[in-house]
C-alpha cells in the first residue's frame, strides 16, 4: 500500500501542471528569500489565499516550493550584501560575505546552492524512508500528548527569545490571548462574539499575514531606494563551489542532520538550526580561527542546515499540525484551507499518504531546481537585491489585502491584518519576539482543546499526563522535556554558582 502510494505520488508529480507549480514555487521562494525583508512566511502567506482554486496537491507543492527555495534564496543577500535575506541565512553572512569581498562571490553562491541541494535531497529521502514509522508514532500521540507537545512548543518561547525574557513571555502570552476570542471549545460560553464575524475567533492566517507582510512593508517603507544600493561584483569560480562542497561530506551530513532534528522541534526552526550547525562546524574544525574571514566550511554548514530544517519541520507540521517555525505555521494553514487535516490520515495509505509523498517528492525535484538555478544564474542573482521598494511595497500590500479577504470573505480578517500589521511593526521595533507571539497564536487553541479532551478522558485527573502505566510513557517524557526546557538554564546557573563557591 505504501509503495503504491509512492508510485501514485510519482505519477501525480510527473504531470506537466504539477511540475510547473514546483518550478514556480521554488523560483518565487528564491526571489522572496533573496529580498531582505521578505521571508518565506511572508511569501507563503500572501500566496496562500491565491491557492484556493488549485488542487490540494498543487497548492501545497507551491507553498512548500516557496519555503524550500527561500532557504537558498536567503543566502544570496547574505553573501552579496551582508544582509540575511531570511533569518535562517544569518550564519551564512559570517563567511559568505568575506568570500564576496575577496572576489569569490560566485564560489560562495555555488557552495550555497550545492550544499542546500545535497542537504535537501538527503533529508527528504530520509523522511520518505522514515515515514512508514511516523504513522505509528502519530497514532501513539493522543489528546494528552498533543496537549503536552503544544506546551513544549510554548516552552520553547524561553529558548527562541533573544534579549529580554520578560518581553518574550509577554509576546507569547499575548499570542495566547488572541486565541481566546470566539466560542469556547469546552463550554457554551462565547467570548467577544457580539458580532457573528468573531464567532470562530481571529483567523490565525490573517494574523500571520498582518505580522509578516504588512508589518514588514511598514518597516521597508521607512527606508529609501532599493533594499541594497551598492553594486556587487560577482567573481570566483562556480565549479570551485561545487568541488569545495563535495569535499566536505561530513560537514554537509552533520549540518543537514542538525537542521532536520532542530527543525522537528516545535518553535525552533531554521534560525536556530543555522547557528547550531555553524557553531558545530567551528567547534569541530582544526582551524577554528579561520571562520569569519571566508572559510568555505562555514557557508556549507549554514546552508546545509537550513535546507535540512525544511524536512524536519514538516514532521510536527503534518503529523500534529504543530509548527516548527512561522513558515510551517503558514503551511499548516494551507493544509487546513484545502481540507487536509494534519494527523494520522496524512500517513495512511487509504488517506492522504499519496499527497504527503507527492509533497516530499516535489521537494526533491525542487532541490534539483535550486541547484540548476543556483549554478546557471549565479552571476545574475545580484539584481534581486536591488529591486526598488517603491514597487515592492504596493504590490505586497495589495496582494495581502486581496488575499486575506478571499480567505473566508469575512471583513473581520481585513481588520485583523491591519491591527496585527501595526502590532507586528512595533513588536519588531521594540524587540518583542514575533515567533513567540506566533507560537502563542497557533498553539493556544491546540493546547486548550486537547487539555479539555484529555481531562474528559481521565475524568478530571491530571495523572493522565504523568502516569506511565495506565497512559503510556510518552506523556511523562514530554513533561520531563518541558520541565528541562523551562528550568534547565536556571538550574544550570545555580549549579555553576555552587561549583564556583565550592
Amino acid at each position, binding site marked *: 500500500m505504501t509503495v503504491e502510494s509512492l508510485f501514485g505520488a510519482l505519477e501525480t508529480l510527473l504531470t506537466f501542471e504539477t511540475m510547473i507549480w514546483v518550478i514556480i514555487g521554488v523560483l518565487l521562494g528564491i526571489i522572496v528569500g533573496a529580498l531582505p525583508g521578505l521571508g518565506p512566511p511572508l511569501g507563503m502567506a500572501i500566496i496562500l489565499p491565491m491557492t*484556493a482554486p488549485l488542487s490540494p496537491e498543487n497548492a501545497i507543492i507551491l507553498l512548500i516550493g516557496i519555503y524550500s527555495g527561500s532557504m537558498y534564496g536567503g543566502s544570496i543577500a547574505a553573501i552579496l550584501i551582508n544582509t540575511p535575506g531570511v533569518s535562517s541565512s544569518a550564519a551564512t553572512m559570517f563567511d559568505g560575505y568575506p568570500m564576496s569581498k575577496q572576489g569569490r562571490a560566485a564560489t560562495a553562491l555555488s557552495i550555497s546552492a550545492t550544499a542546500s541541494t545535497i542537504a535537501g535531497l538527503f533529508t527528504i529521502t530520509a523522511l520518505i524512508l522514515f515515514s512508514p514509522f511516523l504513522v505509528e508514532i502519530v497514532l501513539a500521540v493522543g489528546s494528552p500528548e498533543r496537549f503536552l507537545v503544544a506546551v513544549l512548543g510554548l516552552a520553547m518561547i524561553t529558548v527562541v527569545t533573544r534579549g529580554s525574557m520578560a518581553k518574550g513571555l509577554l509576546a507569547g502570552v499575548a499570542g495566547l490571548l488572541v486565541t481566546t476570542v470566539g466560542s469556547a471549545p469546552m463550554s*457554551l460560553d462565547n467570548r467577544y462574539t457580539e458580532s457573528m464575524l468573531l*464567532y470562530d475567533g481571529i483567523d490565525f492566517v490573517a494574523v500571520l499575514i498582518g505580522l509578516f507582510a504588512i508589518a514588514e512593508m511598514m518597516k521597508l517603507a521607512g527606508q529609501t531606494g532599493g533594499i541594497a544600493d551598492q553594486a556587487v561584483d560577482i567573481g570566483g569560480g562556480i565549479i570551485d563551489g561545487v568541488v569545495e562542497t563535495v569535499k566536505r561530506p561530513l560537514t554537509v551530513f552533520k549540518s543537514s542532520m542538525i537542521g532536520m532534528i532542530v527543525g522537528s522541534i516545535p518553535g525552533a526552526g531554521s534560525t536556530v538550526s543555522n547557528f547550531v550547525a555553524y557553531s558545530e562546524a567551528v567547534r569541530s574544525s582544526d582551524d577554528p580561527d579561520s571562520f569569519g574571514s571566508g572559510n568555505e566550511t562555514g557557508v556549507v554548514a549554514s546552508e546545509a542546515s537550513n535546507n535540512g530544517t525544511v524536512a524536519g519541520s514538516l514532521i510536527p507540521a503534518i503529523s500534529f499540525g504543530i509548527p516548527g517555525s512561522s513558515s510551517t505555521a503558514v503551511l499548516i494553514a494551507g493544509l487546513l484551507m484545502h481540507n487536509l487535516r494534519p*494527523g494520522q490520515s496524512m500517513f495512511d495509505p*487509504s488517506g492522504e499518504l499519496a499527497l504527503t509523498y507527492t509533497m516530499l517528492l516535489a521537494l526533491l525535484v525542487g532541490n534539483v531546481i535550486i541547484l540548476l538555478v543556483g549554478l546557471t544564474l549565479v552571476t545574475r542573482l545580484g539584481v534581486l537585491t536591488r529591486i526598488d521598494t517603491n514597487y515592492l511595497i504596493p504590490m505586497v500590500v495589495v496582494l495581502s489585502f486581496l488575499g486575506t479577504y478571499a480567505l*473566508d470573505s469575512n471583513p473581520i480578517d481585513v481588520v485583523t491584518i491591519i491591527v496585527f500589521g501595526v502590532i507586528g511593526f512595533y513588536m519588531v521595533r521594540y524587540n518583542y519576539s514575533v515567533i513567540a507571539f506566533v507560537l502563542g497564536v497557533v498553539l493556544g487553541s491546540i493546547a486548550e482543546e486537547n487539555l479539555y479532551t484529555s481531562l*474528559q*478522558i481521565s475524568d478530571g485527573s491530571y495523572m493522565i499526563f504523568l502516569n506511565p502505566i495506565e497512559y503510556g510513557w510518552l506523556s511523562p517524557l514530554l513533561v520531563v522535556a518541558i520541565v528541562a526546557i523551562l528550568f534547565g538554564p536556571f538550574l544550570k546557573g545555580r549549579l555553576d554558582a555552587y561549583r564556583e563557591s565550592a
Partner: protein
Amino acid sequence: MIPWSEGGGTDTYARQLGPLMEEELDGSVVIDNQPGAGSLRGIEWLHSQDDDGTVFGTANTPSWQFGWRLEGIDDWHPSDFEPIAYSGVFGYTIIVNDELGVSDFSELQDAYADGEVDNFAHQGTGHDSHVISYLLRDEYDLEWETAVAYDGGGEVNEAVISGETPVGIATNTSAADAVDSGNVSAIVNLMDTDIDAFPEIDQITNYGDSLAYISEFRQTQIAPPGTPEDVRQDLADAIEYAATHDEAQEWAEETGNVLEYGDIDAAADDLDGALDDLEENVDFEAFEERIDEDA
C-alpha cells in the same frame, strides 16, 4: 452561497451540481463560500441579500435551525427564508474500533453496560452530535460515562482509529473514510435513509423511535426573504436537472454521497417542520444546563 469552507461536504455537492445547473439555467452559477459560526454567519449574510433570485444558498436542515436555536439569535428567524428545493441527504452513524469486537448496536449497548468501554466521542461541545450523545444515553440505553468532545469529525475519526475513545459519532461519508483505515466499523445508521456504502448496517430504529429529526440532514436550497416563487421555481428546475443528471448520480455512487431531489413544496414542508420537530424532541434549556454541569 455555501456557508462552509471550500472542500467541505456541502461545498463538494455544490461544485458538483453548479456546472450542471448552468446548462439548465443558461447562465453562470458562482459559488461563494461564507464559512463561520457553524454555517450561521453565511446564512445571516444571505438573509440581508437582494430578493431577486440572483443570490441563494445551501443550508443543512435541521443543523442550522439547531444552531440558531442554541445561539438564541433574535435578529432573524429560519422561517424568514424562502424554500427552493433540496438536493442531497447525509447524516450520522456510530463508528467503533474493531478491537472492541462489536458488530451492531445491541452489542455496543452490552459493551457499555459491562464497563468494557466508558467514553463516547462527539464533534464538539454544543454540537448537534453532542445532543445526540445525550439522546442515545437517555432513550436508547447507551450507558456511556463521559461524552468526550473532539474538534470536528476528523478528530473523532482519529480518536476511534487510535482507540483513544473507541466509539464515536461520524457522518456517513466520514465513516466511510474511517472504515477505509482498516480497523474501524460503522455499526449503526442513525438516519432513516439507507446508506449504500453500508448495506448491512444495523438501524437505530430497531431500538426506538426515529432520530432523523436531529441526525439526518437535507441540503436545502434557500433564498433571501421575499424572493418570488417563479424565480425560485426556475432555480428548483435547474437543481432537479443537476441532481438527477447521470453525471451527478455517477459521482454520488463513486463517493458514497446521497443525491435526492425534493421540490419547492417538499423543501417548504421540511423547513416548516424542522424547528418544530427539534423543539418537540429536544429540551434545549435542560441540555445547556447539563453541558454546564458536565464541563
